């Protein structure tokens, strides 16, 4: 029996996983990180555009602060988010950027003086303040009131992931690469680690840990057309689901990105539009102002993606042999800007399309992009139902994003979540209740169970082709559980996905080696992916309203009266073909920002009965405290200052909100 003991087991070496690891290690706990690939190859590296944090450095961000970021995020989420978590997040995001700045991320910096930008297809001159010179630069992103996205040229995620990974190496954190978690070891109430498979040798290893954190990223590969990497298959999320105890939440909330190149679905950054790029149709006409006169190309992602598909449906798409698409035009930004700030975009166009975006328009069409849902956690990142299990990053439903996450909020979430959850995990490991009392029998049982499944597959008696089933699943998800959803389509999807799940029990392999064997890998991942796909499709079928990225043509209105709920899914029995769904209501009376219009998109929605009452309450508090400090008002509306770990509490300094000149005594407690 191959068993490795560690204090904290982190499944996933992306930004979220690494930051958890660093946090726990700094607090003196032993950490082991598992990853399918070397950490620096994780999909966090793909984020081009930026990381949201209300630093308020640039002119177009003046007046920005935690409150504005909070409102943008909650509106963006279509009120699906946990507002206390959003608070924790917006308060910590500036700290996260600054920590990364100290760790070596070469954030683009503010250059004082005049700067030419394109706003609404017009050249505009912006003059940056002298005081801001050399601070972290910020750009505009969809769905936000202020320029808030901090960025590193066009390689934000790459630079962040490299700095983070280098810190993990500096902290001598053990990383086991090409090691895939296959199952969580648990006894129905406590998680003890995971069984993992060495992707090179095929060997199974049991990792036994006080705390296990899932940070395995998104599940884009449930879809055919996705911007996600090929390893974003949602396996980590599925592991939690398969315990039957932990829940996954809001899986139907899937984001589609407006601008994926067509047909390869490789993302070109939102920054293209943020910097002034335009969307055009077959006639060359800029069409977004017709739909969204206010924010135009810069409305939130779900809105832009939907408008694009709508426009294509109206017959304005460009026809090609692979289907229809629209154009993204960044030619007006000029060669200099593209060559320095959007170089990655230029490379993608050159290598994958053979075009030059300085002169040519880019063929684009929306594609799956982000999984808002994931392993349900409370504000500490812990599973409310399975002790010792944590989750963070895209794999988690910490519930920062609700039904739609804003561009740039996601890499921010990985780091902020990693910081916060890392501390809570360390707290947990510090407490005696985290001590491990498990029998080696349990470990053996889990190992044997996984081995038996692999052996059965390798015996190769089945007749189904894993790749074919998988391709079918991806097709169903793209065509029936996509941007526009209807009850009929969803019901058909659920039906067929169930049949695929049944068929997946009868997979046969052509190549049966037990070591490195890609066919075997895709065979054992398939049922996991199908279960997640069923959570998505089934959740979408049940949710008879439209909210954020989840859009039902047959129920186009947001319905707070009935659907101000999270969808919780559990998989009670391995033999089930459907998840068990439950509702977790959101309490309007606790909300700092009661539900209302988002400021873009459809204006009609059905109010929750509590909404007017809460709105009046909020209004009253605001009037009463008029003139009081921001923080005081906030605290009166939704007290949550004590939710954060001690070391991340406290205000953030800005140019316009300076701290007392003599350096404030460092309130952070040193870990040494």
């Amino acid at each position, binding site marked *: 029996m191959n068993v490795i003991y560690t204090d904290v087991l982190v499944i996933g070496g992306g930004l979220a996983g690494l930051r958890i690891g660093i946090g726990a290690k700094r607090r003196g706990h032993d950490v082991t990180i598992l990853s399918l690939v070397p950490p620096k190859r994780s999909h966090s590296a793909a984020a081009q555009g930026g990381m949201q944090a209300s630093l308020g450095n640039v002119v177009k961000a003046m007046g920005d602060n935690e409150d504005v970021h909070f409102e943008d995020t909650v509106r963006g989420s279509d009120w699906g988010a946990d507002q206390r978590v959003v608070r924790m997040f917006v308060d910590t995001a500036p700290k996260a950027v*600054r920590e990364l700045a100290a760790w070596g991320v070469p954030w683009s910096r503010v250059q004082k003086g005049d700067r030419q930008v394109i706003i609404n297809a017009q050249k505009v001159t912006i003059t940056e303040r002298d005081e801001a010179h050399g601070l972290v630069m910020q750009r505009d992103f969809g769905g936000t009131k202020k320029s808030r996205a901090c960025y590193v040229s066009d390689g934000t995620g790459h630079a962040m992931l490299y700095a983070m990974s280098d810190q993990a190496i500096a902290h001598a954190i053990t990383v086991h690469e090409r090691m895939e978690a296959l199952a969580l070891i648990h006894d129905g109430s406590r998680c003890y680690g995971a069984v993992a498979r060495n992707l090179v040798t095929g060997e199974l290893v049991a990792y036994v840990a006080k705390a296990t954190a899932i940070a395995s990223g998104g599940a884009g590969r449930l879809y055919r057309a996705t911007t996600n990497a090929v390893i974003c298959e949602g396996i980590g999320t599925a592991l939690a689901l398969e315990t039957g105890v932990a829940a996954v939440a809001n899986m139907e909330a899937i984001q589609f990105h407006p601008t994926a190149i067509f047909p390869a679905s490789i993302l070109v950054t939102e920054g293209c539009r943020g910097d002034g790029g335009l969307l055009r149709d077959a006639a060359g006409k800029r069409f977004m102002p017709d739909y969204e006169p206010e924010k135009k190309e810069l409305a939130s992602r779900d809105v832009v993606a939907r408008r694009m598909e709508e426009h294509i449906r109206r017959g304005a798409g460009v026809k090609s042999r692979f289907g229809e698409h629209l154009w993204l035009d960044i030619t007006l930004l000029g060669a200099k800007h593209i060559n320095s700030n959007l170089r990655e975009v230029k490379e993608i166009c050159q290598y994958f399309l053979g075009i030059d975006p300085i002169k040519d328009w880019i063929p684009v069409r929306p594609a799956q992009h982000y999984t808002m849902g994931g392993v349900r956690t409370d504000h500490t990142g812990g599973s409310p139902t399975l002790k010792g299990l944590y989750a963070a990053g895209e794999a988690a439903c910490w519930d920062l994003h609700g039904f739609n996450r804003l561009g740039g909020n996601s890499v921010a979430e990985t780091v902020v979540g990693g910081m916060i959850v890392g501390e809570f995990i360390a707290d947990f490991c510090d407490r005696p209740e985290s001590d491990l009392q498990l029998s080696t029998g349990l470990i053996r049982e889990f190992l044997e169970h996984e081995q038996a499944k692999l052996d059965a597959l390798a015996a190769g008696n089945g007749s189904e082709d894993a790749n074919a089933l998988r391709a079918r699943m991806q097709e169903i998800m793209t065509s029936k559980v996509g941007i526009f959803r209807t009850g009929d389509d969803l019901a058909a999807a659920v039906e067929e996905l169930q049949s695929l799940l049944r068929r997946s029990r009868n997979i046969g392999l052509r190549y049966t080696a037990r070591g490195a064997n890609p066919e075997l890998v895709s065979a054992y991942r398939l049922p996991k992916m199908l279960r997640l796909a069923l959570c998505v499709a089934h959740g979408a079928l049940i949710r008879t309203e439209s909210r954020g990225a989840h859009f039902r043509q047959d129920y186009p209105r947001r319905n707070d009266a009935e659907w101000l709920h999270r969808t919780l899914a559990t998989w009670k029995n391995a033999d089930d073909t459907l998840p068990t769904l439950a509702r977790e209501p959101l309490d309007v009376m606790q909300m700092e920002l009661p539900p209302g219009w988002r400021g873009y998109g459809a204006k009609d929605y059905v109010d929750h009965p509590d909404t007017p009452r809460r709105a009046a309450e909020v209004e009253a508090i605001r009037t009463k405290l008029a003139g009081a400090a921001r923080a005081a008002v906030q605290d009166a509306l939704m007290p949550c200052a004590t939710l954060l770990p001690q070391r991340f509490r406290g205000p953030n300094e800005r140019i316009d909100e300076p701290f007392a000149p003599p350096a404030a005594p460092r309130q952070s407690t040193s870990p040494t």
Partner: protein
Amino acid sequence: MTESAAMPSQSISPESAQRKVRISVLRYNPQERGSVPRMQTYELEEADGMTLFIALNEIREKQDASLQFDFVCRAGICGSCAMVINGRPGLACRTLTRSLGSEITLAPLPVFELIADLSVNTGKWMRAMSERLQAWVHMKQIEVDISRLEERMEPELAQKIYELDRCIECGCCVAGCGTARMREDFVGAVGLNKIARFRLDPRDARTDADFYELVGDDSGVFGCMSLLACHDVCPKALPLATQIAFVRRKMAGAGWK
């Protein structure tokens, strides 16, 4: 409305006649008993916009389930898919088959530990390199007060650091380097570039004397024989020749005394 001249004529890919391509792969799986290195050739129909990523996946799905290779981002940014393509290291995912002849030869990157077929363990090599070169920012103090304004940096300097930070650790420069092929312990251009990157970074408080400790020998910068293949194959077009020369000058200066 501004009408771009580019729009009407543009098509996604030229309507070229479909052709057959023959892809020969150097196959060897050290895990498998009895496996010996051999070339295996697959023939397939070229599709529009076909990259080696698409081609290899098609081969694996339709012709040979045992073929091993690594792709992650399939967008040319993660560095997973470096392999030797017609004799030169490069990223397979962003290589269009139409940019190559109809006979394509693929081999795994040399120098790195072979996992199987086209899959090599670059991750392990890179981690060892990072540990050896202590490739991270060595801060002046461990705790920074992150609630205060970040330290300022000149915009051009930040841009310069990013230029060197763009390395994706794909390993092409190492596999393309004759020195690295002859000497196992050579840090390679990727490592020397890291030194240049951290040396440039004002947040890293190390001095040239400190860097000399890391690369001031023949497995470090003085081992580089200026073959410059690293520079020519780097898929991110990093200025490796300039940076290695720069590190060499600084290290020669630091070591001369």
